[in-house]
């Protein structure tokens, strides 16, 4: 297994820049999720790695081998990189088995290999004679992954492969695919717009914004310490409060909170990032430091908006389980506590 590296890759369509000097290293046998919003260029990045497009500048290497470099370009079919498209892109005129066999060399087209990869992605062997239109969406995606895995590629690229699936099916399919990738220990890059998917998918996450990778690293580390407010809000629900930093603490409407990471550049004015689940609210314990503004049931939970006693202009919205929602009503004084520390950013 070999590491995949992308260095300084730039791509524009016409005059529209899509990727600007993107660099990324995916260690051998690991899974990396690239997350970004629409138009961030993540699909293009994948297509460049696959060899469907040529980069304007930069290098893409697989181990020692340059795939895309100034003056050299290995076409897609000589790269040995598997690709799974968003809709599966199964060949409609071929059966499941023929689809999976498609990339196998002529002499290696035994059914045993087909059966093995079908098992790998937990596909019922009885499906092998079916045509794609006779499969469910989840089955189609598993066939697509099995097809990509069958020739034993060194790298597999997944372009939002689960986004078209229903919520329930989605989790199940994703788990089956992650298991299969894990077992075959293939280097994998997934692109997605779904933060939760990106954070749970693999060993590394890269955040793509405006054609650049703004941050990458292990998912927990990136989630714990987003380098910008944008990354922070993109990765999950965030509570941002104006804060004044002071000796390892930040003073804000919710009181004095320890600073875990400081990106504020030591300015006087800053904002503190908290995740909603860090904030605990209780109706009757301890001295009240806030008042409930409104309570909005949202199905399995309720959103409670509070304003602090210290700063009447700040509103904070947080969640409580729905069975506790009855404990709250507007104008009720409550006690708010913050667990753990905050991350500090410059204001504005």
């Amino acid at each position: 297994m070999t590491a995949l590296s992308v260095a300084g890759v730039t791509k524009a369509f016409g005059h529209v820049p899509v990727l600007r000097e993107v660099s990324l290293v995916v260690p051998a046998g690991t899974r990396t999720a690239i997350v970004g919003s629409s138009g961030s260029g993540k699909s293009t990045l994948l297509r460049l790695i696959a060899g469907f497009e040529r980069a304007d500048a930069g290098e893409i290497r697989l181990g020692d081998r340059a795939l895309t470099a100034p003056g050299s370009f290995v076409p897609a079919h000589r790269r040995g990189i598997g690709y799974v498209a968003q809709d599966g892109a199964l060949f409609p005129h071929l059966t499941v088995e023929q689809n999976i066999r498609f990339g196998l060399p002529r002499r290696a087209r035994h059914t045993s290999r087909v059966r093995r990869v079908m098992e790998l992605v937990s596909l019922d062997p009885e499906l092998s004679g079916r045509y794609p239109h006779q499969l469910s969406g989840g089955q189609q995606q598993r066939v697509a992954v099995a097809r990509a895995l069958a020739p034993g590629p060194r790298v597999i690229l997944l372009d939002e492969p689960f986004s078209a699936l229903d919520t329930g099916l989605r989790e199940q399919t994703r788990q089956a695919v992650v298991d299969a990738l894990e077992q075959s220990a293939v280097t994998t890059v997934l692109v997605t717009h779904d933060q939760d998917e990106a954070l749970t998918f693999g060993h590394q996450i890269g955040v793509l914004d405006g054609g650049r990778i703004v941050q990458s690293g292990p998912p927990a580390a990136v989630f714990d310490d987003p380098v910008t407010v944008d990354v922070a809000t993109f990765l999950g629900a965030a509570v941002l409060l104006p804060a004044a930093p002071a000796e390892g603490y930040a003073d804000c409407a919710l009181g004095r909170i320890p600073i875990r990471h400081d990106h504020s550049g030591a300015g006087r004015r800053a904002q503190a990032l908290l995740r909603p689940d860090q904030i605990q609210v209780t109706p009757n314990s301890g001295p009240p430091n806030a008042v409930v503004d409104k309570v909005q049931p949202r199905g399995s939970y309720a959103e409670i908006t509070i304003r602090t006693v210290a700063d009447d202009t700040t509103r904070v919205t947080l969640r409580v389980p729905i069975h506790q929602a009855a404990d709250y009503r507007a104008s009720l004084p409550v006690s708010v506590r913050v667990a753990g520390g905050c991350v500090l950013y410059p204001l504005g």
Partner: protein
Amino acid sequence: MTVVSGSRRAGPDPGPPAADPRSPDRAVPHPGAAARGASRPSVALVVLACVLGACMLVPIGYIVSVVFDIGWPTLSRLIFRPRVGDLLRNTVLLVVIGVPATVVLGVGGAWLVERTSLPGRRGWAIVLVAPLAIPAFVSSYGWGSTVPSVEGLGGALLVTTLAYYPLVYLPAMAAIRGLDPALEESARSLGLGSWAVFARVVLPQLRLAVLGGGLIVALHLLAEYGAFAFIRFDTFTTAIVVQYQSTFAGPAAGALGVVLATLCLTLLVAEASARGRLRYARIGSGAPRPPVPVRLGRATPLAVGAVAVTGAAAVGVPLTSVVRWLAAGASWTEPELPAALAQTAVLAGGGAILAVLVAFPTAWLTVRHPSRLSRAVEGMSYVASSLPAIIIALALVTVTLRTVPSLYQTAFTVMLAYVIIFLPRALVSLRSGIAQAPESLEEIARSLGHSPMAARARVTLPRLVPAMTAGAALVALGAANELTATLLLAPNGTRTLATQFWSAASAVDYPAAAPYAMLLILLSVPAVALMFVHSRKVPAR
């Protein structure tokens, strides 16, 4: 029936594969999406498509050269004379009365069978499209040989309205099926009655279909020869044929051709500007559930009567007439019959294969590499095939005689004429076929280790076979019915079903014409069935 193309505007035009709306990454126009599609077509392909497109323009070039060759003084003497005024009046009346009549029949019929409680509407839906299987000149023969008073403007309008209204009916039907019934239901909930819903909600959404269908009808009216010649109605096309018979491809025929071509191009421009930005208005994604039919109630007998009379007049009369003449001693054993059948098959089959070959580069470019250039090349084909067959034939006679005598009156030239006349049929089929074989499948095949050409062969080609077959079939069946160009261009000794029919019908030997008429009708049935099925396909999901 000469110019194509119920299917030109009528047929589904899926365009490039649609992005999956559920993915936010694709739902918003990707900055690179358009540019990506336009990525580097091979130079050879572009050159080939341009050369073929230019070949399609030969008839236009001919018209321009006529203007220069004859010179203005002679040309104006040949154009500004009372006879041309008569022809102009006839032609304009024909279009101005005929097109609205076909629209009324076509849209009304489509609405009745698609959106009302008309009893037996599935059967009526087929009955109403059936006239398309009877070539207009056969229908004219059917009427003219049975009811001699069918002649002149009235007769011409009767015969051609009945023969051509399906060209509006088919696209109108497709459009109505694509309408979201929720719109009609909302209108009803806002207090509109059935008729008001039809007039204020349904009709406005059919504008595109009506415009497109109306244009095709108008072009057919300008191009028709046999149907009018048979019942003594003079249009530019019939006058050109008469001039051709008097002077071969002389200046007078050319001058009339200039006027006729100008009329056609005017129609194209008028339709395009009426369409305007409508072109980009996409019709909704289709009916999620069947709409509740409008109850006709006491109007039921009237509606059934109207549909039945239309069907009887458009199909019943010509068919009965053909059968009657068949019974009156037609001979199926004449030695010319198998010969004509064989020669028709060779010419039409060759033309169909050639048309698919010629359409391929253009269709590929427009789907895979959409650009201003590819649209221009495609446009050339449509403009060329909008010209009446008589002009295309005159152009090919003149050009081959003057510049490539070795092609003069050869089978190849006949096939070339078929290609120019029927190319849109092949283009539309191929385009939708190529669009249904998205590039992403080829990319997957490449990522699985297949070279680009191998990927195309194993993934794209199998998907194109049905489209190529359908396109070729539509061209072949159209060509088998073609009369005007075949009359002028056929090689020495070559007789097709259509020309054999015509020479018998012209000599008022009705029984002898009947077997050919029957064969022409039978040959058209598959093409009409194809078009019908196409129009009924509700856009997927």
